[in-house]
């Protein structure tokens, strides 16, 4: 038994009966959709047509949402249905990033993700999904694709079919008969400000057209369902706070070398800073969850494939080592504390960089799948570490200044290299272009200038207060640059329509 859908676009009349029947069956909130109908118009009068595409979960054979779900709320059933258990879901919305089909939405009142589950509650009592039953023209066929006598298997065998975004290698199980190919490729479709008979939600503003990535001239999306970005300020803030925390411990063993005078700042400062920012990081991550009270499931009922889980392990280990170093120092076990500081360095690198592997599981966000993200994150953490050293060292700390400048320049150079890198596909390229046409394009310069000013401050011993103030200014400029970059990176990744 391998369930799947075939959508016969030769028959579909774009009436939205499936959309509404699904809403009635599954009580889908206003503004969210488990299945929806896109209108795409192609051509010029009089040679113009409106094409319909019915979009929904593809019940993928290799479902990225299942892989990324940290708490096993999503599962691939033996009958090929990808189902979601709302009682297990913690509301992290990673599945919404992993899905290349926009198939999941966040039910805010319940604090969990929801999706098409092939009406499994009906299927198990022998009934077809609600969308199939209602369709006036029987354009939606559901059934067992492994049974060659089934209607769906016969339709797929008899007609040429297309599946969405097969390049994602997810094994989608929705087959389209005679769709408009451009309609299934969001990169080729113009996105107007409003639709032919509906408004676009404020959160669903069309992305700007990016030079070099203009959609096809006479292919216009004229009706679509809104898709709210899954991740917001919690996530880009967490990227910054996590990097501050990691950077502090990256710098910890080197503080003496960088000119920080002996004393509490050098001995306890990094741990306190790291633990403080780690606590903020943890708070942000938990607060971002739709169901924060279920956060324990991350550690106690984990999906070990998910980098959200592995990330939690990394953060735990990192926090443990850091806390250990702090406690050892306070207990006077200096050797242990120093050893733990060294152990914390690779953990800090992982703490900063694991997000790259989490993003790599976000198969729906092409920008985040590009190379170099790990390096970029770790470099930026390094900048924070050096900044900490610079501030802790006060005036006349040329080594800290040099380290800060070097890491800042390396970061700026790396960002610039990413900016000029060739994207691996059109959607990524479009997101990439959006990212680098936003204010983010200024941030490498801010970081580099921050580095230069920081060095300058470290070389001016005669005016300790002023130079400290300049150093603070340099760090602030650099940090703001980082913050804005993370924000634009998270936003651009989600801004490009993928369906």
């Amino acid at each position, binding site marked *: 038994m391998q369930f799947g859908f075939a959508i016969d676009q030769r028959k579909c009349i*774009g009436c939205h009966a499936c959309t509404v029947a699904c809403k009635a069956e*599954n009580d889908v909130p206003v503004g969210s959709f488990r299945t929806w109908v896109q209108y795409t118009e192609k051509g010029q009068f009089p040679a113009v047509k409106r094409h319909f595409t019915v979009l929904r979960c593809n019940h993928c054979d290799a479902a990225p949402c299942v892989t990324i779900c940290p708490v096993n709320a999503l599962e691939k059933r033996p009958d090929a249905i990808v189902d979601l258990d709302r009682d297990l879901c913690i509301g992290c919305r990673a599945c919404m990033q992993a899905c290349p089909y926009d198939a999941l939405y966040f039910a805010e009142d319940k604090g969990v993700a929801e999706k098409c589950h092939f009406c499994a509650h009906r299927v198990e009592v022998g009934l077809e999904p609600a969308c199939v039953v209602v369709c006036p023209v*029987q354009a939606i066929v559901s059934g067992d694709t492994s049974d060659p006598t089934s209607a769906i298997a016969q339709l797929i065998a008899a007609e040429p079919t297309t599946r969405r975004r097969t390049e994602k290698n997810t094994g989608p199980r929705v087959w389209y008969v005679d769709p408009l190919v451009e309609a299934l490729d969001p990169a080729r479709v113009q996105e107007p400000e409003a639709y032919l*008979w509906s408004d676009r939600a404020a959160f669903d503003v069309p992305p700007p057209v990016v030079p070099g990535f203009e959609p096809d001239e006479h292919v216009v999306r004229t009706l679509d369902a809104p898709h709210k970005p899954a991740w917001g300020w919690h996530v880009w803030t967490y990227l910054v706070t996590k990097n501050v925390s990691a950077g502090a411990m990256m710098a910890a063993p080197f503080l003496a070398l960088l000119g920080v005078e002996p004393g509490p700042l050098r001995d306890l400062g990094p741990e306190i800073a790291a633990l403080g920012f780690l606590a903020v990081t943890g708070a942000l991550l938990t607060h971002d969850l739709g169901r924060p009270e279920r956060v324990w499931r991350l550690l106690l009922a984990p999906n070990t494939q998910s980098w959200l889980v592995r990330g939690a392990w990394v953060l735990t280990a990192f926090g443990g080592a850091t806390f250990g170093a702090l406690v050892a120092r306070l207990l006077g076990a200096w050797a242990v504390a120093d050893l733990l500081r060294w152990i914390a360095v690779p953990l800090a690198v992982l703490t900063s960089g694991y997000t790259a592997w989490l993003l790599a599981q976000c198969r729906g966000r092409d920008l985040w799948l590009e190379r170099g993200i790990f390096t970029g994150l770790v470099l930026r953490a390094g900048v924070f570490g050096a900044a900490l050293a610079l501030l802790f060292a006060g005036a006349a700390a040329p080594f800290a200044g040099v380290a800060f400048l070097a890491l800042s320049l390396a970061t700026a150079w790396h960002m610039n290299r990413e900016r000029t890198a060739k994207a691996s596909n059109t959607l990524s390229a479009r997101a990439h272009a959006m990212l680098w046409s936003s204010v983010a394009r200024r941030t490498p310069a801010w970081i580099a200038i921050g580095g230069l000013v920081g060095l300058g401050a470290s070389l001016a011993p005669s005016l300790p207060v002023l130079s400290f103030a300049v150093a603070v200014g340099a760090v602030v400029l650099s940090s703001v640059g980082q913050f804005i970059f993370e924000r634009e990176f998270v936003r651009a990744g989600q801004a490009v329509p993928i369906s």
Partner: protein
Amino acid sequence: MTTQSPSIAPSGEPWRTTTLASFPPLERWDDWVEYDPSAWPRKVERRYALVPTICFNCEAACGLVAWVDKSTRRIQKLEGNPYHPGSRGRNCAKGPATLNQIHDPQRILYPMKRSGPRGSGAFERTTWDEVVATFGARIRKALVENRRTQVMYHVGRPGHDGAMERVLQAWGVDGHNSHTNVCSGAARLGYALWSGGDRPSPDHANAKFILLLSSHLETGHYFNPHAQRIIEGKMKGAKIATVDVRLSNTASMSDWWLAPYPGTEAALLLGFAHVILAEGLEDTEFLRNWVNWREYMRARGQTPDFAAFRAALVDQYQHYTPEFVAAECGVDAQTVLAIGRAIGAARGAFASHVWRSAASGNLGGWQVARCLQLLNVLTASVGTQGGTALAGTNKYVAKRWNPPPAQDVWSELLYPPEWPLSHHELSFLLPHLIADGRGVIDTYFTRVYNPVWTNPDGFSWIEMLGDESKVGLHACLTPTWSETALWADYVLPMGHATERHDVMSQETHAGRWIGFRQPIGRVLAERDGKTVVATHEVNPGEVWEEDEFWIALSWAIDPDGDLGIRKYFESPYRPGERLSVDDQYRWMFENSVPGLVEEAAKHGLDPLGYMRRFGAFAVPGDTLTPHAHTAPTEGAERNAAEGIWTKDGKTVAIDVAGAPCAGFATPSKRLEFYSPTLVEWGYGDEALPGYIQSHLHRSRLDTARGEIALVPTFRLPTQIHTRSANSKWLAELSNTNPVWIHPTDAAQRGVKSGDLIRVSTRIGHFVARAWVTEGIRPDVVACSHHMGRWRIDIGASTPGAVDAQARSSESLGADRWSSAPVRVEHHAPGQWRVRRTGDVGPFESSDPDSSRVFWSAGGVHQNLAFAVQPDPISGMHCWHQVVTVEIAHGEDRFGDVEVDTTKARAVYLEWLELARARRAAAPPTDLHRPEWFARAVRPSAKAYRKRTS
């Protein structure tokens, strides 16, 4: 993590999914167990009772099955009814969306009575007893004083067959007003002239060629049943051509999209006729047998010779060459040729349909339907598999018990003498007819009717409804607030599709059926063995069903039976006692639905029990060729030369292939290519199917002034005219109505997509946003009529300040899912403006979804800015408008509508004069209307004659 694949169904049987069913088996409809989707994947069993009913959103009357949670008695969802012959278990978006209407937090649950000036929005709760007593006494007085044209029932969607006919005729009033002349009146006249049947019934499923005027695949009259069969035909190889100025879903799914300049559609159709005739593709046998060509030849002063007729026919359409059509309509000549040939080749299996669109938009639009049916006649596709039959054969109207006699009065407020052929009442002229001094209304019921919003010239309606000397007492029968309900004295909540009884039949396909709408709560209570006396006992709040209202009201009018009314509302089974709805439908199903008694018996049910269980019944019998059935000729005389049988001077049968056949419902019993009726009534120049240049013909437009044609009538797949503002799932999908404009027209006016534009008509203007699109032909702009719902911002509006305590809410009118708050400003006599005081947006209610409304525009109420334009012959409102389109002025705000009703009055008088001028040439007659023409709630033969005294 994995879970075991379930192997046992909740019923205890092994779970099999090799073939999934669309519906639970009928024998489990009383107790169907399914898992609760809100608890899934926890397997929480939910027990449902399934009760069939029929949809009350569009007119198609598709089957629905209400799934009722047996523990909470809440209707959880509505799916299709597999036993419904028209909809076959499937629905459009509006079927399942019925759920929103039932559970709408803003629905009206109690009878309301006005507590401030009309239109102020001040209402208070009253009792049904008070309502029935008030209206009963008032109507009784009108009847006793013989004011039988002053009681008026004005209906939008009837939603039933024959119910009100019975009530109004029992009262003896001529008071049935409808909406057809803002809808289908023109097409009805065109079709009726051919055959006496005023509705087409195409058999799309078996057609070889389907020609659609407008969007029958996604919004047409019977959209779901038609869409099923159009696509069925397409998948079997039928070719489809669609005529529409704008790109509809239907046009997109067609082999040809034809976008002629609006108003030239009849010329296009005659172009196809020309091709068929020029290439000899017509079916001469069919024409010879079934068309009244002899009458035509005689009228030409020629002997009835078929060859001569054929020559005359060819000659008649000689100049509609593809080249002429190309020039006149703006459609490619080669395409005209190709489609003409394809229609000809489809002989016998050419299905076509026009219901509103071009027929309803244009002066002379009624000829569009006539020209379309000409193609069916030429190709012998009338009453054939794959052809277009007429409603009379595919619609079955069951009789009701003890029909009262026809009323003996004729109301000229309904059928004014200037439009004797109208199909039907000149309803949209009512404010002007009353202003003419043709009569007043004592008691006015509006039902599923929202003239302030739906009709053109809504401000004139507001002026009329606000004037107690014109409309004495007004009750609005509606489940939901509307722009019209605001101006009523009483607002009476009536049930939705799951809260009332009705019987309906529609000509959805080649076949006939009846569908039974029933109150779900009542059926369930009765299944549980409870006795329900009245449906309102089980409905939400104090929502009534109309059947029971009219029965109660009729008893209140005639409590002792002295007016002779009460007897029609007494039980056929319990003499002297009040008729119940059970009595009413039991009698109907037992006595007037052929085959139902027998079919019910097969299932061990009585007929009413069968209808309660199945919700629909396919009425057996030949629906394709009743015209070819042998007609009784006893006492009739055969006229061999004419090929007819006559009795008492009337044709009763026609000779076809040597046998007397029943023929069609025309005086000649033939398909009337030539209409003696038109000649007799003074319209002899239109005696044949022809092309009338529309009021927006290019030659009549001042293009130098920037005039352009506006098509303001197109529908959306997920809206139901005025009645879907209470559905959140429909509002979410379609919630605004920008003006569609082609890039070249937009560029000429400096307009870009999203720009605010001012669209000016002869009586005012409205302010909308532009949608620049390739999906519309140049020289035309179009705007869907579905949007622009409003509610008054109480206190901010004139007329009349309202005591804050009297306000039932801060705003009142159309449902908040779709409406924007407005100020209705009335600055000086005739000077009106509607201006928004806010956007559509989230609101507080018991439904958490109301906080999630993400749309804001809501569209513009364009109909307010249109003057009435009654076609001088059909009386149909000619919807299309000549307008100018420009960038909005500085003071304009989105949604503004500004109108001068004194100008609206002047436009009415102009069009009235057109009709009078046409009638002036007519020979004198003592009839109000041709006797063979249908009339809603048909009066007696005596009433058809004008009183001479």
